[in-house]
């Protein structure tokens, strides 16, 4: 028995050598020598075991910190546009850091609440996919205004297709099934769509918003219809034109229809109403969810505080995500990013990409081009101009 303990002690010291980086291997040798000098085998084993525990925890925390810091550095390099738009600050990578922080806090809640592991994996997968999408999007050259209008129109067709042929539950058709996953296109597309509309409005983009409003009334989706009204109301306050007013009127009508129609869907565990249930679980779980939800608004507050050019996109972004959080608090709607469901995570990251796009060009340079030749001239002023080469 004594020999077994001593052998186990040596194995642990070997493991320490593997855990520690080369520059710190001296400590593993020191611990081994110290354990060898302890006469009592049991005490030596406990000594080595506890040293391993402490050093593994230290090593893990250092690696996590280094990984997170490296990720932030990379993000700050690929999102300079939003940074410059925010007066040389770091709204862009702050936004993605907020998304990562909110998802991590949500994972802590889901784990504490006993959610199945596949739910945690789906949230992590959505986060990775969303970050990758934003990276690609923000590195691409800016599309001309008419293409942005077409993008809004295609997004609205996706919402209409969901309303007419999506997966239905208790009379609501808000989801599309993709293999084992059920995604909610309105939560993924609508926030980015509203920010794109705030960026560039025209007849095609406005038609897209009208179709989206119709789709939300048909689904029915009170929460996202309310989000559309909130985003467009803030936009109308900041930038009133006929396109915004038409879109706002249509969205208000859609919201009214959605409110009149019955919505008997019950709350889904780990998805809906977790702002309340998390506090029932534990005050720390509740604090994690509340802090995660608050993090979602930080990019808007940061942009409003430090933005030097046009603050409208930040106001719209804040209105959109605040209204999604409020809807989740008031009804049986998904609690964004911190709750289970990749749709809100993807939607948040895509809207960050749209925010970076919308915020990077000074308002004076953002008038719709009179001719196709005008677009490259505008893009040349953008911080993304080097990517156009």
């Amino acid at each position, binding site marked *: 028995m004594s020999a077994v303990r001593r052998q186990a002690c040596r194995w642990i010291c070997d493991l320490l050598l593997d855990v520690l980086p080369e520059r710190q291997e001296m*400590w593993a040798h020191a611990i081994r020598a110290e354990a060898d000098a*302890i006469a009592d085998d049991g005490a030596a084993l406990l000594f080595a075991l506890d040293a391993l525990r402490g050093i593994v925890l230290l090593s893990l925390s250092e690696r996590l910190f280094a990984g997170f810091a490296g990720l932030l550095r990379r993000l700050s390099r690929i999102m300079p546009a939003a940074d410059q738009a925010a007066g040389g600050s770091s709204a862009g990578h702050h936004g993605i850091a907020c998304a990562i922080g909110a998802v991590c806090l949500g994972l802590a809640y889901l784990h504490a609440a006993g959610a199945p592991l596949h739910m945690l994996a789906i949230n992590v997968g959505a986060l990775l996919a969303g970050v990758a999408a934003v990276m690609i999007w923000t590195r691409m050259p800016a599309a001309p205004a008419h293409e942005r209008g077409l993008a809004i129109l295609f997004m609205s067709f996706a919402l209409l297709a969901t309303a007419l042929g999506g997966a239905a539950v208790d009379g609501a058709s808000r989801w599309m099934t993709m293999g084992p996953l059920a995604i909610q296109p309105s939560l993924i597309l609508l926030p980015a769509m509203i920010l794109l509309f705030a960026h560039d409005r025209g007849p095609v983009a406005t038609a897209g918003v009208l179709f989206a409003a119709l789709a939300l009334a048909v689904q029915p989706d009170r929460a996202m219809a309310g989000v559309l009204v909130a985003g467009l109301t803030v936009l109308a306050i900041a930038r009133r034109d006929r396109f915004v007013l038409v879109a706002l009127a249509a969205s208000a009508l859609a919201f009214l229809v959605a409110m009149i129609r019955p919505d008997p869907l019950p709350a889904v565990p780990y998805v809906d109403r977790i702002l309340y249930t998390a506090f029932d679980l534990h005050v720390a779980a509740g604090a994690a969810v509340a802090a995660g939800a608050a993090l979602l608004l930080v990019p808007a507050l940061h942009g409003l505080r430090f933005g030097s050019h046009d603050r409208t996109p930040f106001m719209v972004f804040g209105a959109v995500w605040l209204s999604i959080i409020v809807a989740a608090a008031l009804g049986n709607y998904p609690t964004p990013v911190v709750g289970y469901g990749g749709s809100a995570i993807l939607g948040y990251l895509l809207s960050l990409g749209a925010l970076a796009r919308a915020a990077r060009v000074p308002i004076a340079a953002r008038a719709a081009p009179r001719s196709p030749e005008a677009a490259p001239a505008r893009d040349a002023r953008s911080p993304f101009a080097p990517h156009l080469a």
Partner: protein
Amino acid sequence: MSQPRALSLQTRKVLSALLDEGRSGAHGYEIIQRVGIKSGTLYPLLMRLADQGFLEAEWRAPEVAGRPPRQVYRLTASGVELARRNLPEPHPSVDPLSGAAPA
């Protein structure tokens, strides 16, 4: 060389123990027995202090023949200064209000 803003009680106790040992230094297990902490707490703490330049380590030949060499830890000049500024507060042996020793 960076200096930690606030030292934990355990760090202050370890610094105090090493301060008492002076230039002769102390082995890891000796510090553990003297301060009353576990190896999983001591070694990360020693590693941080060494990284910050407050601690130096030296391999020393064993006092008993046949044993392997062991590492001895002692404070550097800046470590001594840090330890002196952060001595652990003694436990109150007298009630400051009544003047009586606690039961």
